[in-house]
């Protein structure tokens, strides 16, 4: 049991947390009857994905992906003496991976925008059916078809 924790859980504890968060979101999307609660579940699900991506870019003992001014000064000195294609003084392991940050930065804003569209749709559903409970909406749709 202890060996399992040492090898499987502790080095990957972040992924375990994301799987738990993601499953909470998935559960509420499937099981909850209220459409707004489903949307909240969808947002929780999305948060798990965002955390997963950002954690992939984490490096131990690294700082945020903004090159420090001291490093920039050293870099300018080396590039002034040698040609432009000279070996860069910036070590990749010094900074966190910027790519997941970029991807998630846009994903957060796009997530907010799509959530707005989803809320607009639920507002229209409420306007048309007078309820946000999924089973009641389905019943009313069925009744509409029977009338026709």
């Amino acid at each position, binding site marked *: 049991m202890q060996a399992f924790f040492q090898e*499987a859980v502790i080095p990957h504890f*972040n992924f375990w947390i994301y799987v738990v968060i993601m499953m909470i979101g998935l559960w509420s999307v499937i099981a909850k009857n209220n459409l707004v609660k489903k949307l909240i579940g969808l947002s929780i699900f999305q948060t798990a994905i965002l955390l997963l991506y950002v954690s992939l870019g984490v490096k131990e003992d690294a700082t945020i992906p903004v090159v420090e001014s001291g490093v920039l000064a050293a870099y300018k000195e080396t590039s002034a003496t040698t040609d432009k294609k000279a070996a860069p003084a910036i070590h990749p392991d010094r900074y966190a991976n*910027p790519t997941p940050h970029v991807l998630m930065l846009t994903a957060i804003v796009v997530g907010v925008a799509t959530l707005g569209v989803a809320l607009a749709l639920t507002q229209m559903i409420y306007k048309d059916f007078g309820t946000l409970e999924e089973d009641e909406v389905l019943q009313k749709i069925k009744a509409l078809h029977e009338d026709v």
Partner: protein
Amino acid sequence: MKAKIFASIAVVITGAILLYAVIDFPDFGDPGSPPNAGVPGGAPAASRYYIQNTYRDSKVPNLVTAVLADYRGYDTMFETVVILTAGISIFAILRVVRRDDDPSAPEPVASDRTIDGDHHRIIVGITCRIAAPLIQIFALYVVAHGHYSPGGGFQGGVMLGASFILLALSGSLRETLARFSERDYTRLAFVGILIYAGLGLLPMWVGRNFLDYGALSGLFMTKGEEMARSHSMLGVEIGVAITVMSIMFAMFANLSTRGRLQGGL
């Protein structure tokens, strides 16, 4: 009840499969993991190139901004288009435009909450009125300083939009719409995209690739192509910020009034 039992079974099975897959994932914080260093025996990861060469290519210390606006500029442009599309869809779904509506007619009393009409909101309203310009100045700083510190167009745009939402929440939507009308924000949303796409198209004028900002050194009167890239990134971020600001406020205005743009919360 049945749905909850089935959902629990599905979630437990999916979670177990995912947790089993997690065992093969790289360790947390490992600098040599495939996303950080590349696949063993294959090409090094693109992020290593970004970290090592961003400053040489564009003189931008903030790697995230450089990757966002330059290396992955095509992606970011269409992410902005997605936001614009979301704004258009909300307009299409919710907006109610009645031709017989008289714009000068007084609003319904129950929902017409102005600062003067509701004394309980005086402190909140005036505090937010003082805070809003400060928020906007800080948002402009976040946009303009996005090259050198954490920040950029998306973050600054969201803050600008939030300042208008704060005004609409604390005062009234009507007053806020008088300053930032529907016509304004709809136009600005498109202007932001046009700034981005226009800066991308300009290099094609001189026979370079789309979004190849290095060709704009003549336009920005810079010595090398690196500073032209840096300035173009600022322009692109401003475009993104304008679009995000407009769409955030448009979303709030439409959602809080069910598309009528009257009354509000």
